């Protein structure tokens, strides 16, 4: 019996191997195109300024450190570290704000039955589709009248007030998936909502909370329009605005430092992504599927 089937098995196996090879070739080709800009910036950061645009080589022929050491001088008297500190402050506060306010709100939607819950939930979801730009001008006027221009307050206030509806939604979905028996048991044991939230629901919702925290960090780090509108003093600029300053002041003459700074600015995002990509990707996928 084995002798009769073995030739069939081997051709099928061969076909599978060819299919697998074709698959990998195809996937690698797409990957090469997709990652080209990333590898390019890595290579360019080690090229002399004059070669960066003109040279077709992906990697530098003679790597130079000048671009990175040039960064130590900073831009018009402001050190690079200053921009990074500002961005870290912004992103850190944003994470704290989103995690606290969104998880509290999500708990209310997922675990407490109160009058008007469905209406409020619909309103909250509705804000997801609202173009942010319609709020931009009145919010600017509001914060200007309150005297908060050129501070981080306008950038992070919304995070502490759960206006990032996507994260509330993500956490609601997650908390609804937790077994009801747990919080019902807690209630029977005499736990109030605060206790149930803090010692049962919050620890169990860790995946949703980590996802929200990482997305918040990355969004704040990449945010450009917010700082552009609210921050005026260069020493308060975030990395995004620092990069724009670089562009305006150094221009083509110092392309190398600009590219090196661009690369350095990407490091936190890429590092976070590498560390948490499983959470992020799964969080992204489930948010699109469950309604």
């Amino acid at each position, binding site marked *: 019996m084995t002798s009769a089937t073995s030739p069939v098995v081997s051709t099928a196996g061969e076909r599978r191997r060819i299919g697998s090879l074709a698959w990998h070739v195809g996937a690698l080709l797409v990957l090469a195109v997709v990652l080209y800009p990333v590898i390019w910036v890595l290579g360019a950061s080690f090229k002399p300024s004059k070669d960066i645009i003109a040279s077709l080589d992906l990697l530098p022929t003679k790597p130079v450190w000048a671009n990175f050491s040039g960064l130590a001088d900073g831009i018009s008297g402001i050190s690079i570290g200053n921009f990074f500190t500002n961005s870290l402050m912004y992103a850190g506060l944003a994470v704290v704000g989103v995690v606290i306010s969104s998880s509290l709100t999500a708990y209310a939607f997922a675990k407490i039955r109160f009058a008007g819950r469905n209406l409020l939930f619909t309103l909250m979801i509705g804000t997801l589709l609202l173009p942010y730009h319609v709020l931009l001008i009145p919010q600017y006027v509001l914060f200007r009248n309150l005297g908060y221009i050129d501070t981080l307050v306008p950038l992070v206030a919304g995070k502490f007030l759960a206006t990032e509806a996507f994260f509330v939604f993500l956490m609601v979905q997650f908390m609804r998936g937790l077994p009801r028996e747990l919080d019902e048991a807690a209630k029977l044991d005499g736990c109030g909502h605060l206790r149930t939230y803090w010692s049962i629901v919050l620890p169990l919702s860790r995946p949703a909370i980590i996802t929200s925290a990482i997305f918040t960090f990355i*969004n704040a780090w990449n945010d450009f329009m917010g700082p552009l509108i609210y921050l005026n003093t260069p020493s308060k600029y975030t990395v995004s605005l620092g990069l724009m300053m670089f562009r305006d002041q150094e221009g083509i003459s110092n392309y190398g430092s600009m590219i090196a700074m661009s690369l350095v600015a990407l490091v936190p995002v890429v590092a976070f*992504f590498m560390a948490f990509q*499983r959470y992020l990707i799964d969080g992204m996928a489930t948010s699109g599927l469950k309604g």
Partner: protein
Amino acid sequence: MTLVKEAPARPAQKRSAAPVAGRRGRRRENLAGYLFMSPWIAGFLLLTAGPMIASLYYAFTSYNLFTPPKWVGLDNFTTMFQDPRWQKSVEVTLKYVVVATPLKLLLALGVALLLAQKRRGQSLYRAAFYMPSLIGASVSVGFVWRALFSDNAVVDRTQKVFGLDVGGWIGNPDYVLYALVALSIWQFGAPMVIFLAGLKQVPQELYEAAEMDGAGPFRRFWNITLPMISPVLFFNVLLESIHAFQVFGSAYVVSDTRCGPADATLVYTCYLYQKGFKEAQMGFASAMAWTLVIAVALVTAVLFWSQKKWVHYEEAAK
């Protein structure tokens, strides 16, 4: 512009909660609910509902931040519709939405189909394809794009090999918008991941049955895969087109801060920014913002209306 993805509107599910004893218990639950969500309520009133009303009012005023708003009726809207730069910004934005969204989704679906096959290193590929979606919104990548698409740089030289000499895309008003389109397509990771999750939910038996009936790969894709993932496709079309309407950062950074040359990348929000924050015409900018809200609402409504025709939900199939 942001990576934040939105979800379709669905009312809260009704679930039987533990019976709450009596009116006092119910009142206590109400109080607890409102206390827990007080941050959101404050945020909604202060940063969403209030500003919406304010901007609706500003839209009918002339307001420069320094003197109180002056009621001008529909003037902002009539000026806006006759403004050639506003018309240009609408044209640029529509072109961007119509070209970038389908191409991005096509690539996302193609790669998702590739990755849906069980192969070694699958999750590594998935992560690598997703990465541009996270860094794509940064100023850094805007600079990289400028460098790649400028005169005599990589893209320019590559196309010269094929005899296509258009110079750099960045400086050419006919091409610069397509550099932005390319940047948008490059960030296909987020819709791809959603497609992948949808593909995983298609029951394998359907394919096996179809194969036995002699259906080829194309037929199987058209008659099984596509209908089965149509809810996910709908979700992606909705989100990506809404996002495309609101593109700002890449246009601002890639095509110099004036969204040029020759207003070639003057996307809607870029003009809104110029009017509001450069020229301090807050009334005009508010009128623009409300027009955008109406446009986005219309697109959403049309998509929701159209889904009856092409989106198959499992409940409906049964």
